[in-house]
Protein backbone atom coordinates (compact mmCIF):
# COMPACT_ATOMS: atom_id res chain seq x y z
CA UNK A 1 0.00 0.00 0.00
CA UNK A 2 1.16 3.48 -0.81
CA UNK A 3 -0.52 6.54 0.64
CA UNK A 4 0.40 8.72 -2.34
CA UNK A 5 -1.10 6.27 -4.83
CA UNK A 6 -4.16 5.82 -2.66
CA UNK A 7 -4.63 9.57 -2.31
CA UNK A 8 -4.38 9.99 -6.07
CA UNK A 9 -6.83 7.21 -6.93
CA UNK A 10 -9.36 8.29 -4.34
CA UNK A 11 -9.11 11.79 -5.74
CA UNK A 12 -9.35 10.46 -9.29
CA UNK A 13 -12.47 8.57 -8.33
CA UNK A 14 -14.03 11.75 -7.03
CA UNK A 15 -13.00 13.52 -10.24
CA UNK A 16 -14.63 10.86 -12.41
CA UNK A 17 -17.76 11.03 -10.30
CA UNK A 18 -17.99 14.73 -11.14
CA UNK A 19 -17.93 13.91 -14.84
CA UNK A 20 -21.48 12.58 -14.72
CA UNK A 21 -22.95 15.88 -13.55
CA UNK A 22 -20.54 17.47 -16.05
CA UNK A 23 -22.14 15.41 -18.79
CA UNK A 24 -25.56 16.27 -17.41
CA UNK A 25 -24.84 19.96 -17.91
CA UNK A 26 -23.14 19.48 -21.26
CA UNK A 27 -26.21 17.63 -22.52
CA UNK A 28 -28.67 19.71 -20.53
CA UNK A 29 -27.40 22.94 -22.06
CA UNK A 30 -27.69 21.55 -25.58
CA UNK A 31 -31.34 20.54 -25.40
CA UNK A 32 -34.30 22.87 -25.54
CA UNK A 33 -35.41 24.53 -22.32
CA UNK A 34 -38.49 22.35 -21.97
CA UNK A 35 -36.29 19.25 -21.68
CA UNK A 36 -33.43 20.70 -19.65
CA UNK A 37 -34.22 19.32 -16.22
CA UNK A 38 -35.29 15.92 -17.56
CA UNK A 39 -32.08 15.52 -19.54
CA UNK A 40 -29.97 16.47 -16.54
CA UNK A 41 -31.96 13.99 -14.48
CA UNK A 42 -31.32 11.17 -16.93
CA UNK A 43 -27.58 11.59 -16.50
CA UNK A 44 -27.65 12.41 -12.79
CA UNK A 45 -29.78 9.42 -11.84
CA UNK A 46 -27.04 7.10 -13.10
CA UNK A 47 -25.10 7.99 -9.95
CA UNK A 48 -27.88 6.21 -8.10
CA UNK A 49 -28.69 3.42 -10.53
CA UNK A 50 -25.21 2.34 -11.49
CA UNK A 51 -23.91 3.24 -8.04
CA UNK A 52 -26.13 0.59 -6.53
CA UNK A 53 -25.99 -1.99 -9.33
CA UNK A 54 -22.21 -1.85 -9.43
CA UNK A 55 -21.63 -2.69 -5.76
CA UNK A 56 -24.25 -5.41 -5.95
CA UNK A 57 -23.35 -7.31 -9.11
CA UNK A 58 -21.66 -5.08 -11.69
CA UNK A 59 -18.18 -5.08 -10.23
CA UNK A 60 -18.20 -8.81 -9.69
CA UNK A 61 -19.31 -9.49 -13.26
CA UNK A 62 -16.72 -7.18 -14.75
CA UNK A 63 -13.74 -7.72 -12.49
CA UNK A 64 -14.54 -10.80 -10.41
CA UNK A 65 -12.78 -14.15 -10.89
CA UNK A 66 -12.72 -14.92 -14.60
CA UNK A 67 -15.09 -17.36 -16.30
CA UNK A 68 -13.53 -18.45 -19.58
CA UNK A 69 -12.22 -15.03 -20.55
CA UNK A 70 -15.79 -13.89 -21.05
CA UNK A 71 -17.15 -12.64 -17.75
CA UNK A 72 -16.47 -12.51 -14.05
CA UNK A 73 -18.37 -14.75 -11.66
CA UNK A 74 -20.53 -13.54 -8.79
CA UNK A 75 -18.12 -14.28 -5.96
CA UNK A 76 -17.77 -10.59 -5.22
CA UNK A 77 -21.54 -9.96 -5.18
CA UNK A 78 -22.37 -7.16 -2.78
CA UNK A 79 -18.64 -6.46 -2.39
CA UNK A 80 -18.06 -9.81 -0.70
CA UNK A 81 -14.40 -9.84 0.32
CA UNK A 82 -13.70 -6.63 -1.52
CA UNK A 83 -11.96 -4.90 1.31
CA UNK A 84 -9.48 -2.39 2.60
CA UNK A 85 -6.42 -4.39 1.61
CA UNK A 86 -5.01 -4.28 -1.91
CA UNK A 87 -6.79 -6.52 -4.40
CA UNK A 88 -5.62 -8.35 -7.49
CA UNK A 89 -5.51 -5.26 -9.70
CA UNK A 90 -3.01 -3.19 -7.74
CA UNK A 91 -0.64 -3.72 -4.86
CA UNK A 92 -0.49 -0.13 -3.74
CA UNK A 93 -4.13 0.87 -3.30
CA UNK A 94 -7.03 -0.70 -1.37
CA UNK A 95 -9.20 -3.07 -3.34
CA UNK A 96 -12.21 -0.92 -2.44
CA UNK A 97 -10.56 2.08 -4.06
CA UNK A 98 -10.01 0.21 -7.31
CA UNK A 99 -13.64 -0.92 -7.19
CA UNK A 100 -14.86 2.65 -6.62
CA UNK A 101 -12.70 4.03 -9.41
CA UNK A 102 -14.13 1.50 -11.84
CA UNK A 103 -17.63 2.22 -10.58
CA UNK A 104 -17.48 5.78 -11.83
CA UNK A 105 -16.81 4.49 -15.35
CA UNK A 106 -19.87 2.28 -15.11
CA UNK A 107 -21.88 5.29 -13.97
CA UNK A 108 -20.98 7.61 -16.83
CA UNK A 109 -20.97 5.14 -19.72
CA UNK A 110 -24.72 4.46 -19.81
CA UNK A 111 -25.30 8.18 -19.31
CA UNK A 112 -23.32 8.95 -22.46
CA UNK A 113 -25.84 7.05 -24.55
CA UNK A 114 -28.84 9.13 -23.57
CA UNK A 115 -27.71 11.93 -25.85
CA UNK A 116 -28.79 9.85 -28.83
CA UNK A 117 -32.42 9.79 -27.80
CA UNK A 118 -32.65 12.96 -25.74
CA UNK A 119 -35.89 14.97 -25.77
CA UNK A 120 -38.15 11.95 -26.31
CA UNK A 121 -37.20 9.07 -24.00
CA UNK A 122 -39.68 7.65 -21.52
CA UNK A 123 -38.03 7.80 -18.13
CA UNK A 124 -39.21 4.45 -16.77
CA UNK A 125 -38.01 2.53 -19.82
CA UNK A 126 -34.77 4.45 -19.74
CA UNK A 127 -34.09 3.28 -16.19
CA UNK A 128 -34.70 -0.34 -17.10
CA UNK A 129 -32.54 0.07 -20.18
CA UNK A 130 -29.58 1.39 -18.24
CA UNK A 131 -29.64 -1.39 -15.67
CA UNK A 132 -29.87 -4.09 -18.32
CA UNK A 133 -27.31 -2.42 -20.54
CA UNK A 134 -24.77 -2.01 -17.75
CA UNK A 135 -25.18 -5.66 -16.85
CA UNK A 136 -25.36 -7.25 -20.26
CA UNK A 137 -23.29 -4.98 -22.48
CA UNK A 138 -20.93 -2.99 -20.29
CA UNK A 139 -19.81 -5.52 -17.68
CA UNK A 140 -18.69 -8.18 -20.17
CA UNK A 141 -16.82 -5.69 -22.35
CA UNK A 142 -15.07 -4.23 -19.31
CA UNK A 143 -14.15 -7.77 -18.36
CA UNK A 144 -12.74 -8.55 -21.80
CA UNK A 145 -10.53 -5.48 -21.82
CA UNK A 146 -9.55 -4.87 -18.20
CA UNK A 147 -10.88 -7.72 -16.08
CA UNK A 148 -8.67 -10.48 -17.38
CA UNK A 149 -10.85 -11.27 -20.41
CA UNK A 150 -9.81 -12.14 -23.94
CA UNK A 151 -9.25 -8.69 -25.47
CA UNK A 152 -6.78 -7.61 -22.82
CA UNK A 153 -4.99 -10.89 -22.21
CA UNK A 154 -5.24 -12.90 -25.43
CA UNK A 155 -5.72 -10.38 -28.21
CA UNK A 156 -3.42 -7.93 -26.46
CA UNK A 157 -5.16 -4.81 -27.70
CA UNK A 158 -4.51 -1.65 -25.71
CA UNK A 159 -7.13 0.51 -24.05
CA UNK A 160 -5.69 2.74 -21.38
CA UNK A 161 -8.79 4.34 -19.94
CA UNK A 162 -11.78 3.26 -21.95
CA UNK A 163 -11.66 3.90 -25.69
CA UNK A 164 -13.44 0.65 -26.41
CA UNK A 165 -15.13 -0.03 -23.09
CA UNK A 166 -16.54 3.43 -22.61
CA UNK A 167 -16.63 5.48 -25.78
CA UNK A 168 -16.93 3.06 -28.69
CA UNK A 169 -19.29 1.02 -26.58
CA UNK A 170 -21.48 4.03 -25.83
CA UNK A 171 -21.17 5.32 -29.39
CA UNK A 172 -22.35 2.05 -30.91
CA UNK A 173 -25.17 1.83 -28.39
CA UNK A 174 -26.09 5.39 -29.32
CA UNK A 175 -26.36 4.41 -32.96
CA UNK A 176 -28.81 1.68 -32.04
CA UNK A 177 -30.58 4.16 -29.78
CA UNK A 178 -31.02 6.82 -32.45
CA UNK A 179 -32.42 4.21 -34.83
CA UNK A 180 -34.78 2.51 -32.41
CA UNK A 181 -36.09 5.69 -30.81
CA UNK A 182 -36.65 7.37 -34.15
CA UNK A 183 -36.82 11.07 -34.89
CA UNK A 184 -38.12 13.76 -32.66
CA UNK A 185 -41.43 15.27 -33.70
CA UNK A 186 -41.40 18.60 -35.44
CA UNK A 187 -37.65 19.01 -35.45
CA UNK A 188 -36.18 19.67 -38.86
CA UNK A 189 -32.55 18.86 -38.28
CA UNK A 190 -31.23 20.40 -35.15
CA UNK A 191 -32.44 22.64 -32.38
CA UNK A 192 -30.79 25.62 -30.77
CA UNK A 193 -29.00 24.97 -27.44
CA UNK A 194 -31.05 26.53 -24.68
CA UNK A 195 -28.09 27.49 -22.50
CA UNK A 196 -24.60 27.90 -23.91
CA UNK A 197 -23.19 28.82 -20.52
CA UNK A 198 -24.37 25.49 -19.18
CA UNK A 199 -22.69 23.68 -22.07
CA UNK A 200 -19.39 25.30 -21.12
CA UNK A 201 -19.92 24.49 -17.44
CA UNK A 202 -20.45 20.86 -18.36
CA UNK A 203 -17.40 20.82 -20.57
CA UNK A 204 -15.27 22.35 -17.84
CA UNK A 205 -16.35 19.71 -15.33
CA UNK A 206 -15.74 16.98 -17.91
CA UNK A 207 -12.25 18.26 -18.69
CA UNK A 208 -11.43 18.60 -14.99
CA UNK A 209 -12.76 15.14 -14.21
CA UNK A 210 -11.05 13.56 -17.19
CA UNK A 211 -7.69 13.95 -15.44
CA UNK A 212 -8.98 11.40 -12.97
CA UNK A 213 -10.34 9.26 -15.77
CA UNK A 214 -7.07 9.07 -17.68
CA UNK A 215 -4.25 9.86 -15.28
CA UNK A 216 -6.06 7.89 -12.60
CA UNK A 217 -6.05 4.87 -14.89
CA UNK A 218 -2.32 4.59 -14.18
CA UNK A 219 -3.50 3.42 -10.74
CA UNK A 220 -0.54 5.23 -9.22
CA UNK A 221 0.85 8.73 -8.73
CA UNK A 222 3.90 8.23 -10.88
CA UNK A 223 5.51 9.23 -14.16
CA UNK A 224 2.99 7.23 -16.14
CA UNK A 225 0.15 9.14 -14.57
CA UNK A 226 1.99 12.39 -15.26
CA UNK A 227 2.35 11.43 -18.90
CA UNK A 228 -1.32 10.50 -19.20
CA UNK A 229 -2.23 13.78 -17.55
CA UNK A 230 -0.29 15.80 -20.09
CA UNK A 231 -1.42 13.89 -23.17
CA UNK A 232 -5.00 14.29 -21.96
CA UNK A 233 -4.78 18.04 -21.65
CA UNK A 234 -2.91 18.44 -24.91
CA UNK A 235 -5.41 16.43 -26.93
CA UNK A 236 -8.32 18.32 -25.39
CA UNK A 237 -6.73 21.67 -26.19
CA UNK A 238 -5.96 20.65 -29.75
CA UNK A 239 -9.41 19.15 -30.28
CA UNK A 240 -11.00 22.40 -29.12
CA UNK A 241 -8.90 24.54 -31.44
CA UNK A 242 -9.43 22.24 -34.40
CA UNK A 243 -13.20 22.19 -34.09
CA UNK A 244 -13.25 25.93 -33.55
CA UNK A 245 -11.23 26.49 -36.71
CA UNK A 246 -13.51 24.24 -38.75
CA UNK A 247 -16.67 25.93 -37.56
CA UNK A 248 -15.05 29.25 -38.43
CA UNK A 249 -14.21 27.99 -41.87
CA UNK A 250 -17.80 27.04 -42.61
CA UNK A 251 -19.83 29.78 -40.97
CA UNK A 252 -17.38 32.62 -40.59
CA UNK A 253 -17.85 32.44 -36.83
CA UNK A 254 -16.03 30.59 -34.06
CA UNK A 255 -18.65 28.33 -32.57
CA UNK A 256 -18.63 28.29 -28.76
CA UNK A 257 -20.53 25.04 -28.55
CA UNK A 258 -18.25 23.69 -31.26
CA UNK A 259 -15.13 24.59 -29.31
CA UNK A 260 -16.52 22.84 -26.26
CA UNK A 261 -17.47 19.82 -28.33
CA UNK A 262 -13.99 19.74 -29.84
CA UNK A 263 -12.47 19.57 -26.39
CA UNK A 264 -14.68 16.61 -25.56
CA UNK A 265 -13.78 14.97 -28.87
CA UNK A 266 -10.08 15.35 -28.07
CA UNK A 267 -10.61 13.91 -24.61
CA UNK A 268 -12.48 10.94 -26.03
CA UNK A 269 -9.78 10.16 -28.58
CA UNK A 270 -6.90 10.39 -26.13
CA UNK A 271 -8.63 8.10 -23.64
CA UNK A 272 -7.39 4.76 -24.99
CA UNK A 273 -3.97 6.25 -25.76
CA UNK A 274 -3.26 8.50 -22.79
CA UNK A 275 -0.80 6.30 -20.92
CA UNK A 276 0.69 4.57 -23.97
CA UNK A 277 1.78 7.46 -26.18
CA UNK A 278 4.12 10.35 -25.61
CA UNK A 279 7.70 9.90 -26.74
CA UNK A 280 8.17 10.40 -30.45
CA UNK A 281 10.44 9.03 -31.79
CA UNK A 282 11.27 6.99 -28.74
CA UNK A 283 15.05 7.15 -29.01
CA UNK A 284 15.83 10.68 -27.91
CA UNK A 285 12.48 11.83 -26.65
CA UNK A 286 12.10 14.51 -29.29
CA UNK A 287 8.76 16.25 -29.51
CA UNK A 288 6.90 14.45 -26.76
CA UNK A 289 3.91 16.71 -27.28
CA UNK A 290 3.20 15.64 -30.85
CA UNK A 291 1.33 12.34 -30.58
CA UNK A 292 -1.28 13.97 -28.35
CA UNK A 293 -1.48 17.05 -30.59
CA UNK A 294 -2.09 14.83 -33.61
CA UNK A 295 -4.67 12.71 -31.81
CA UNK A 296 -6.49 15.84 -30.66
CA UNK A 297 -6.48 17.34 -34.13
CA UNK A 298 -7.66 14.08 -35.69
CA UNK A 299 -10.49 13.90 -33.19
CA UNK A 300 -11.57 17.46 -33.94
CA UNK A 301 -11.58 16.76 -37.67
CA UNK A 302 -13.29 13.39 -37.44
CA UNK A 303 -15.90 14.58 -34.99
CA UNK A 304 -16.73 17.72 -36.94
CA UNK A 305 -17.20 15.97 -40.26
CA UNK A 306 -19.09 13.14 -38.61
CA UNK A 307 -21.58 15.68 -37.29
CA UNK A 308 -21.95 17.17 -40.77
CA UNK A 309 -22.40 13.75 -42.27
CA UNK A 310 -25.03 12.86 -39.71
CA UNK A 311 -26.93 16.01 -40.67
CA UNK A 312 -27.07 14.74 -44.24
CA UNK A 313 -28.82 11.58 -43.22
CA UNK A 314 -32.06 11.14 -41.43
CA UNK A 315 -30.47 9.96 -38.20
CA UNK A 316 -31.72 11.95 -35.21
CA UNK A 317 -28.81 11.31 -32.86
CA UNK A 318 -29.90 14.34 -30.87
CA UNK A 319 -26.62 15.28 -29.23
CA UNK A 320 -24.23 13.57 -31.66
CA UNK A 321 -23.07 10.76 -29.43
CA UNK A 322 -22.15 8.59 -32.40
CA UNK A 323 -19.93 11.29 -33.84
CA UNK A 324 -18.30 12.50 -30.65
CA UNK A 325 -17.94 9.25 -28.72
CA UNK A 326 -18.21 6.57 -31.39
CA UNK A 327 -16.13 8.05 -34.20
CA UNK A 328 -13.63 9.85 -31.98
CA UNK A 329 -13.32 6.74 -29.84
CA UNK A 330 -12.42 4.75 -32.93
CA UNK A 331 -9.94 7.40 -34.01
CA UNK A 332 -8.30 7.21 -30.62
CA UNK A 333 -8.19 3.44 -30.47
CA UNK A 334 -6.57 3.22 -33.91
CA UNK A 335 -4.08 6.00 -33.24
CA UNK A 336 -3.08 4.18 -30.08
CA UNK A 337 -1.87 1.50 -32.45
CA UNK A 338 0.07 4.14 -34.32
CA UNK A 339 1.68 6.11 -31.53
CA UNK A 340 2.18 3.54 -28.77
CA UNK A 341 5.87 3.25 -27.97
CA UNK A 342 7.60 0.36 -26.27
CA UNK A 343 9.27 2.47 -23.61
CA UNK A 344 5.90 3.53 -22.28
CA UNK A 345 3.38 0.99 -23.52
CA UNK A 346 5.66 -2.02 -23.52
CA UNK A 347 4.64 -2.74 -27.10
CA UNK A 348 5.62 -1.16 -30.42
CA UNK A 349 3.18 0.94 -32.37
CA UNK A 350 3.33 1.91 -36.02
CA UNK A 351 5.79 4.74 -35.45
CA UNK A 352 8.25 2.16 -34.22
CA UNK A 353 7.64 0.22 -37.40
CA UNK A 354 5.23 -2.48 -36.31
CA UNK A 355 1.79 -2.97 -37.86
CA UNK A 356 0.98 -5.68 -35.39
CA UNK A 357 -0.63 -3.57 -32.71
CA UNK A 358 -2.69 -1.70 -35.27
CA UNK A 359 -4.41 -4.89 -36.39
CA UNK A 360 -5.11 -5.87 -32.84
CA UNK A 361 -6.59 -2.47 -32.18
CA UNK A 362 -8.75 -2.75 -35.28
CA UNK A 363 -9.98 -6.14 -34.18
CA UNK A 364 -10.82 -4.85 -30.71
CA UNK A 365 -12.67 -1.89 -32.22
CA UNK A 366 -14.72 -4.08 -34.52
CA UNK A 367 -15.49 -6.57 -31.78
CA UNK A 368 -16.66 -3.77 -29.48
CA UNK A 369 -18.88 -2.23 -32.13
CA UNK A 370 -20.41 -5.55 -33.09
CA UNK A 371 -21.01 -6.49 -29.48
CA UNK A 372 -22.55 -3.19 -28.45
CA UNK A 373 -24.60 -2.68 -31.58
CA UNK A 374 -26.13 -6.14 -31.57
CA UNK A 375 -26.91 -6.40 -27.92
CA UNK A 376 -28.15 -2.85 -27.53
CA UNK A 377 -30.44 -3.32 -30.51
CA UNK A 378 -31.83 -6.48 -29.00
CA UNK A 379 -32.44 -4.82 -25.65
CA UNK A 380 -34.14 -1.82 -27.24
CA UNK A 381 -36.27 -4.03 -29.47
CA UNK A 382 -37.59 -5.91 -26.48
CA UNK A 383 -38.11 -2.81 -24.38
CA UNK A 384 -39.97 -1.12 -27.18
CA UNK A 385 -42.37 -4.04 -27.35
CA UNK A 386 -42.81 -4.38 -23.61
CA UNK A 387 -42.71 -0.84 -22.26
CA UNK A 388 -42.43 1.58 -25.16
CA UNK A 389 -39.29 3.62 -25.61
CA UNK A 390 -40.83 7.03 -26.22
CA UNK A 391 -43.28 9.35 -24.57
CA UNK A 392 -46.40 10.16 -26.56
CA UNK A 393 -46.69 13.14 -28.85
CA UNK A 394 -48.38 15.44 -26.36
CA UNK A 395 -45.72 14.77 -23.78
CA UNK A 396 -42.95 15.32 -26.29
CA UNK A 397 -44.39 18.64 -27.46
CA UNK A 398 -44.98 19.83 -23.92
CA UNK A 399 -41.42 18.84 -23.04
CA UNK A 400 -40.15 16.10 -20.77
CA UNK A 401 -39.71 18.43 -17.80
CA UNK A 402 -43.43 18.92 -17.55
CA UNK A 403 -44.67 15.63 -18.89
CA UNK A 404 -42.25 13.16 -17.31
CA UNK A 405 -41.38 14.96 -14.10
CA UNK A 406 -43.87 17.81 -13.65
CA UNK A 407 -40.88 19.96 -12.75
CA UNK A 408 -40.03 22.71 -15.23
CA UNK A 409 -36.33 23.53 -15.12
CA UNK A 410 -36.77 27.27 -14.64
CA UNK A 411 -39.35 29.46 -12.93
CA UNK A 412 -37.59 32.79 -12.84
CA UNK A 413 -40.50 35.15 -12.40
CA UNK A 414 -42.95 36.01 -9.72
CA UNK A 415 -45.89 33.63 -9.47
CA UNK A 416 -48.32 34.44 -12.24
CA UNK A 417 -45.71 35.86 -14.58
CA UNK A 418 -43.39 34.68 -17.26
CA UNK A 419 -43.19 31.37 -18.93
CA UNK A 420 -43.67 28.29 -16.80
CA UNK A 421 -44.75 29.91 -13.59
CA UNK A 422 -48.04 30.68 -11.89
CA UNK A 423 -49.31 31.24 -8.40
CA UNK A 424 -49.45 28.13 -6.31
CA UNK A 425 -53.07 28.29 -5.33
CA UNK A 426 -54.04 24.80 -4.37
CA UNK A 427 -52.01 22.04 -2.86
CA UNK A 428 -53.44 18.66 -3.64
CA UNK A 429 -51.57 16.08 -1.66
CA UNK A 430 -53.92 13.17 -2.01
CA UNK A 431 -55.33 10.82 -3.09
CA UNK A 432 -52.16 9.42 -4.58
CA UNK A 433 -52.57 8.20 -8.13
CA UNK A 434 -51.48 4.66 -8.77
CA UNK A 435 -47.94 4.20 -9.92
CA UNK A 436 -47.84 3.74 -13.65
CA UNK A 437 -51.12 5.52 -14.08
CA UNK A 438 -49.59 8.93 -14.20
CA UNK A 439 -51.91 11.90 -14.17
CA UNK A 440 -52.18 14.29 -17.08
CA UNK A 441 -49.93 17.30 -16.75
CA UNK A 442 -52.99 19.52 -16.84
CA UNK A 443 -55.36 19.51 -13.97
CA UNK A 444 -58.49 18.94 -16.02
CA UNK A 445 -57.23 18.22 -19.42
CA UNK A 446 -57.13 15.02 -21.33
CA UNK A 447 -53.97 16.02 -23.13
CA UNK A 448 -52.99 18.42 -25.81
CA UNK A 449 -53.09 16.22 -28.83
CA UNK A 450 -53.47 17.76 -32.21
Amino acid at each position, binding site marked *: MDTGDTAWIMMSTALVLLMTPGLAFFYGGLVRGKNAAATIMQAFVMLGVAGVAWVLWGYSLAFGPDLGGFIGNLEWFGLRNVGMEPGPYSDTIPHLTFMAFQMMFAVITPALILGAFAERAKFSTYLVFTVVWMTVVYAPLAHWVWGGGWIGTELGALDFAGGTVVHINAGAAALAGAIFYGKRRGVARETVPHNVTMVVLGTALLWFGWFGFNAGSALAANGGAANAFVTTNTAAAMGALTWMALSWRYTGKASIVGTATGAVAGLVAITPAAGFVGEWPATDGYLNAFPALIIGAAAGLAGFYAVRLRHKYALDDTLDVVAVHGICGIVGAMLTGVFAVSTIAGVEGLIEGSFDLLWRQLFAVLASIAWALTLTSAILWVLNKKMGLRVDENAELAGLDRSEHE*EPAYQFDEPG*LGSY*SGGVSTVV*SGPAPEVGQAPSI*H*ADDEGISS
Partner: protein
Amino acid sequence: MKKIEAIIRPERLEQVKVALTDAGYSGLHVESVTGRGRQRGVIHSGRGGEHYTIDMLPKVKLVLVVKDDNLEAATNLIIETARTGNIGDGMLFVSAVEDAIRVRTGERGDSLL
Protein backbone atom coordinates in the same frame (compact mmCIF):
# COMPACT_ATOMS: atom_id res chain seq x y z
CA MET B 1 -57.64 47.50 -39.91
CA LYS B 2 -58.29 44.95 -37.23
CA LYS B 3 -56.08 43.52 -34.59
CA ILE B 4 -56.41 39.82 -33.83
CA GLU B 5 -55.02 38.78 -30.47
CA ALA B 6 -55.03 35.01 -30.25
CA ILE B 7 -54.11 33.36 -26.98
CA ILE B 8 -53.14 29.84 -27.94
CA ARG B 9 -51.12 26.83 -26.81
CA PRO B 10 -47.35 27.32 -27.14
CA GLU B 11 -47.15 23.91 -28.79
CA ARG B 12 -49.38 25.03 -31.67
CA LEU B 13 -47.57 28.25 -32.49
CA GLU B 14 -45.27 26.73 -35.06
CA GLN B 15 -48.15 25.27 -37.10
CA VAL B 16 -50.15 28.50 -36.92
CA LYS B 17 -47.14 30.48 -38.08
CA VAL B 18 -46.60 28.18 -41.02
CA ALA B 19 -50.28 28.31 -41.97
CA LEU B 20 -50.25 32.11 -41.84
CA THR B 21 -47.15 32.26 -43.98
CA ASP B 22 -48.70 29.99 -46.55
CA ALA B 23 -51.78 32.17 -46.60
CA GLY B 24 -49.64 35.25 -47.20
CA TYR B 25 -49.64 36.86 -43.77
CA SER B 26 -46.00 37.51 -43.17
CA GLY B 27 -46.16 40.22 -40.48
CA LEU B 28 -47.03 39.20 -36.94
CA HIS B 29 -45.60 39.16 -33.46
CA VAL B 30 -45.96 37.00 -30.39
CA GLU B 31 -45.74 37.49 -26.66
CA SER B 32 -45.30 35.06 -23.85
CA VAL B 33 -48.22 35.25 -21.42
CA THR B 34 -49.76 33.16 -18.70
CA GLY B 35 -53.47 32.84 -18.51
CA ARG B 36 -56.39 31.04 -17.06
CA GLY B 37 -59.82 30.28 -18.40
CA ARG B 38 -61.68 27.02 -18.32
CA GLN B 39 -58.49 25.11 -17.80
CA ARG B 40 -57.84 24.57 -14.12
CA GLY B 41 -54.07 24.77 -14.18
CA VAL B 42 -50.89 22.84 -14.59
CA ILE B 43 -49.69 20.23 -12.15
CA HIS B 44 -46.38 20.44 -10.38
CA SER B 45 -44.93 17.61 -8.30
CA GLY B 46 -43.03 18.42 -5.13
CA ARG B 47 -40.31 16.37 -3.52
CA GLY B 48 -42.64 15.42 -0.73
CA GLY B 49 -44.77 13.43 -3.17
CA GLU B 50 -47.46 16.07 -3.52
CA HIS B 51 -49.21 17.69 -6.41
CA TYR B 52 -49.52 21.41 -6.69
CA THR B 53 -51.90 22.99 -9.13
CA ILE B 54 -50.47 26.11 -10.65
CA ASP B 55 -53.53 28.12 -11.66
CA MET B 56 -51.87 30.05 -14.47
CA LEU B 57 -50.82 28.30 -17.64
CA PRO B 58 -48.18 29.31 -20.14
CA LYS B 59 -49.78 30.55 -23.36
CA VAL B 60 -48.69 32.45 -26.40
CA LYS B 61 -50.40 35.62 -27.49
CA LEU B 62 -50.12 35.95 -31.25
CA VAL B 63 -50.86 39.42 -32.53
CA LEU B 64 -51.78 39.97 -36.15
CA VAL B 65 -53.00 43.20 -37.64
CA VAL B 66 -54.98 42.63 -40.84
CA LYS B 67 -57.03 44.53 -43.35
CA ASP B 68 -60.75 44.53 -42.56
CA ASP B 69 -61.35 42.28 -45.53
CA ASN B 70 -59.00 39.62 -44.32
CA LEU B 71 -60.31 39.46 -40.80
CA GLU B 72 -62.66 36.56 -41.28
CA ALA B 73 -60.20 34.47 -43.24
CA ALA B 74 -57.30 35.06 -40.88
CA THR B 75 -59.46 34.39 -37.84
CA ASN B 76 -60.68 31.11 -39.21
CA LEU B 77 -57.22 30.05 -40.23
CA ILE B 78 -55.84 30.65 -36.76
CA ILE B 79 -58.72 28.96 -35.00
CA GLU B 80 -58.53 25.90 -37.16
CA THR B 81 -54.81 25.48 -36.95
CA ALA B 82 -54.58 26.15 -33.23
CA ARG B 83 -57.43 23.87 -32.28
CA THR B 84 -56.78 20.54 -30.55
CA GLY B 85 -60.33 20.10 -29.25
CA ASN B 86 -59.28 20.02 -25.61
CA ILE B 87 -59.87 22.54 -22.89
CA GLY B 88 -57.08 25.07 -22.96
CA ASP B 89 -57.10 25.78 -26.69
CA GLY B 90 -57.49 29.46 -26.00
CA MET B 91 -59.36 32.58 -26.97
CA LEU B 92 -59.15 35.09 -29.75
CA PHE B 93 -60.05 38.76 -29.43
CA VAL B 94 -60.66 41.25 -32.23
CA SER B 95 -60.38 44.99 -31.94
CA ALA B 96 -60.08 48.00 -34.20
CA VAL B 97 -56.81 49.58 -35.21
CA GLU B 98 -56.83 53.11 -36.52
CA ASP B 99 -53.49 53.33 -38.19
CA ALA B 100 -50.34 51.41 -39.03
CA ILE B 101 -47.01 53.01 -39.80
CA ARG B 102 -43.78 51.47 -41.03
CA VAL B 103 -40.95 52.87 -38.94
CA ARG B 104 -38.34 52.57 -41.67
CA THR B 105 -40.24 54.50 -44.33
CA GLY B 106 -43.04 56.31 -42.55
CA GLU B 107 -45.58 54.73 -44.93
CA ARG B 108 -49.05 54.39 -43.48
CA GLY B 109 -52.22 52.42 -43.82
CA ASP B 110 -53.73 49.25 -45.12
CA SER B 111 -51.13 48.59 -47.76
CA LEU B 112 -48.56 47.63 -45.18
CA LEU B 113 -50.45 44.60 -43.95
